[in-house]
């Protein structure tokens, strides 16, 4: 039982170096090698960011120490938005070039994106109580973040509901892309809805010139969130690769190694 013709079509031996790594077989070891450096960077940046945030940055004049939520809130909010765009990008690439790796990338990113969206909502709500006096208001930014969270949930629920991975990939991709077209529309519509007839009942009470140490802390934490996201996504994409490609030679060899290793 040889499937050499199969693997040959999957791993172009020559041509673009970009497309070289577009095959799971070649990407798998590369991702493995990237993993540890990513974790180290993530941990280092987190420590630096938290230290700056809690021990160097001064107490805010108007908000007191409650503002220190910013060091996770803003990175989380940023990540949730960026990840959705990246996800939609990979989906589009997958649909156009029919590369399975890009679909895997996007399904590996989704849970982490949803996680960040949830953290942004949670920390925002906890921040809102001391600053606005309520956990939740129907502000434009808040509403669109909530909808973004729903979009992530929809993508994941759809993928979970389809057994066949190939179908799941492409159906998920479709909804991710349609959602991405909608995200800006949603954002502006919500913003307009909220400010048109009401006058902003709430506004973010941030000082116009943020202390530079605050900004530094926030940026460090944002970079840490990036590194963490990349790390988790790499692990997850590796797991997905094995799950999906169990019948192929390269995963068999991998399984061989594991089975042999566990025996030895």
């Amino acid at each position: 039982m040889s499937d050499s013709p199969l693997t040959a079509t999957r791993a172009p031996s020559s041509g673009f170096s970009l497309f070289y790594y577009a095959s799971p077989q070649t990407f798998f070891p590369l991702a493995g090698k990237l993993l540890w450096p990513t974790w180290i960077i993530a941990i280092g940046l987190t420590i630096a960011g938290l230290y700056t945030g809690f021990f160097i940055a001064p107490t805010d004049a108007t908000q007191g120490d409650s503002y220190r939520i910013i060091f996770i809130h803003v990175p989380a909010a940023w990540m949730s938005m960026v990840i959705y765009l990246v996800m939609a990008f990979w989906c589009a690439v997958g649909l156009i070039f029919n590369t399975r790796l890009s679909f895997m990338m996007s399904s590996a990113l989704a849970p982490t994106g949803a996680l960040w969206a949830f953290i942004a909502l949670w920390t925002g709500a906890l921040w809102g109580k001391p600053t606005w006096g309520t956990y939740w208001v129907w502000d434009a930014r808040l509403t669109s973040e909530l909808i973004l969270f729903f979009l992530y949930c929809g993508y994941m629920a759809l993928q979970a509901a389809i057994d066949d991975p190939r179908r799941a990939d492409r159906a998920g991709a479709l909804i991710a892309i349609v959602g991405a077209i909608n995200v800006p529309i949603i954002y502006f519509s919500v913003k307009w809805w909220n400010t048109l007839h009401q006058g902003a009942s709430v506004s973010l009470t941030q000082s116009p010139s943020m202390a530079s140490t605050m900004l530094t802390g926030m940026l460090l934490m944002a970079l840490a969130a990036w590194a963490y996201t990349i790390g988790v996504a790499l692990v997850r994409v590796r797991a997905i690769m094995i799950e999906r490609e169990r019948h192929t030679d390269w995963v068999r060899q991998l399984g061989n190694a594991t089975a042999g290793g566990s025996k030895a």
Partner: protein
Amino acid sequence: MNWESANHFWAMGGYGFFVWGSYAVTALLVAAELVLVARRMRAARAGAARDVAIERIDAERRGRA
């Protein structure tokens, strides 16, 4: 240094509940995600290994027959 004592640090100027509530939940969720993703990876590897083992047994049986 911002904090006069550990107590001050934990109190966060009276906003301890909100600040630590945010950080604790974040830490918890991140930890949970890491555990889940590690488990998934282990399950995937175990599955692949099982496939190989089954194949080997199968081949042996056929060889005997």
